[in-house]
């Protein structure tokens, strides 16, 4: 079997030679990595942290602060945890690819050159 990889969404990006230089890509995507399991509720609750955007229900779980001068990052998770991390340049850029099961098509939607990485033990919030 074989399937073409569409790069339609990437075209303008590739032609202008723009690529990610900070926390999010020019197309608005971000890659966040935590050394651990991030537990987040999967069910709707009547709580201000739960919102709907278009057809998607979501829960607000954290706050991210980037110190662009030093590439440091701070992540507040829930109400009780604080993680220290950094903006890391990827050794090999990562293509974001969607495999559409319904119509059997494949699309490369973006390229990540950086990720925000948290590998230290979470600190309590004082």
């Amino acid at each position, binding site marked *: *079997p*074989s*399937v073409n990889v569409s790069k339609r969404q990437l075209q303008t990006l590739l032609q202008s030679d723009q690529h990610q230089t900070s926390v999010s890509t020019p197309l608005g995507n971000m*890659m966040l*990595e935590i050394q651990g399991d991030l537990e987040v509720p999967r069910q709707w609750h009547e709580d201000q942290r739960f919102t709907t955007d278009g057809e998607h229900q979501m829960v*607000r*779980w954290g706050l991210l*602060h980037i110190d662009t001068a030093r590439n440091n990052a701070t992540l507040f998770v829930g109400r009780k945890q604080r993680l220290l991390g950094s903006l890391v340049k990827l050794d090999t850029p*990562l*293509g974001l690819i969607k495999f559409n099961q319904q119509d059997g098509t494949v699309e490369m939607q973006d390229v990540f050159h950086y990720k925000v990485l948290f590998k230290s033990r979470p600190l309590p919030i004082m």
Partner: protein
Amino acid sequence: SLNLHERLSTDGSFRLLHLTPELLEVLKDSNSKLQFKAAGNDEDDGDVVLCSRDKTWLLRQKNHSNTVMLMHEFTPEQETSLETTFGLPNPTSDFAGFARTTFEYETKKVSGIINLDSVPVHNGSLDFPPADGQDLPVKSMDDLLASSACSEKECLSQWNQLGGCTVKGYPCILSSDFLSKALHVTLMSAMAESLDFSRLKLDETFDAVNKDMDQDSNPYTREVIKTTLEKYGKRVKDDDDCWQLDQKKVAEWYGIRALRKYASQSSIPPAEFLIKWKSTFPPYAPFDIEIEMLRGWFFRPTGSNLQYLSKNTLPSDIKERFKMLFKLQSQWDMDDIAPFVEELNTKGLKIDVFIMKYARKRRVGKKFIISSR
């Protein structure tokens, strides 16, 4: 600072793929295409590769134990109210996690291999292919390319080397015998029409072969002539459908067949073999021949006599192969034995270094003699 959300139900159809500098170049080229492929049909589950027009990368899944969240910036419908900002400036953007991944696909450049399962061998018989084509699962070159874990360029290059052909659109491999006949007929016809071996055009060559041929019983179709030219020639640059005959390759082909015919059951003195070899060519064929051209196809059981030996009959285990080779011939010239063991040098060592791992090398005069340890 940024508000981070996650969708309550995330999308499992996203993957992360390592983009090497070469792959990034392919992406940037607007004329290029990339395809995910696997050998066989959908149910077979062969290994997935990624192909550009001329290169193949094997996908290797690397699992990990971290949480990786893929997020997209969005503008919330309502302003998010926060109970606390932890002393940071008010958040100015919102990101929503839409997928999580627990692995990445690494990409390793490999040599693509054409998939010849279900491609039949055609020996020139006039009732090929069968009328309904039902027994032929590979019905076109497009089918063949789609079912090979291989880029188009690598596929076609291997196809040409193997004597691949199409008969009424159905891919097939021409048998060794049929290909030899096609080559012989092509050479004779080309010489009869005084065609230039360095510029053999398909149309002229086909016309030359088909001159005075009864079309109903003629297996030398245009595709068969093309296959013959692809296998024994090199395409002339910037000239479609024109080939320069590879005279050395043609001479070797005849030589291997001559070894099979005259030196299989018993060995033959080299001088006598050269005469026999020459006699197999079409009359007046201008090919130079030397025994050394056939290294990898003969051994010398006694003294200088030659006897046919095919790699296909040798053990695939390297130690056993050397054992067999020394049983057939106790001492070898380095240059004579190397072609018989090269294919097992999978780590790409220098050939003499490789041979020395399994055999003894002695200098005798100007030559190196290889014998068993």
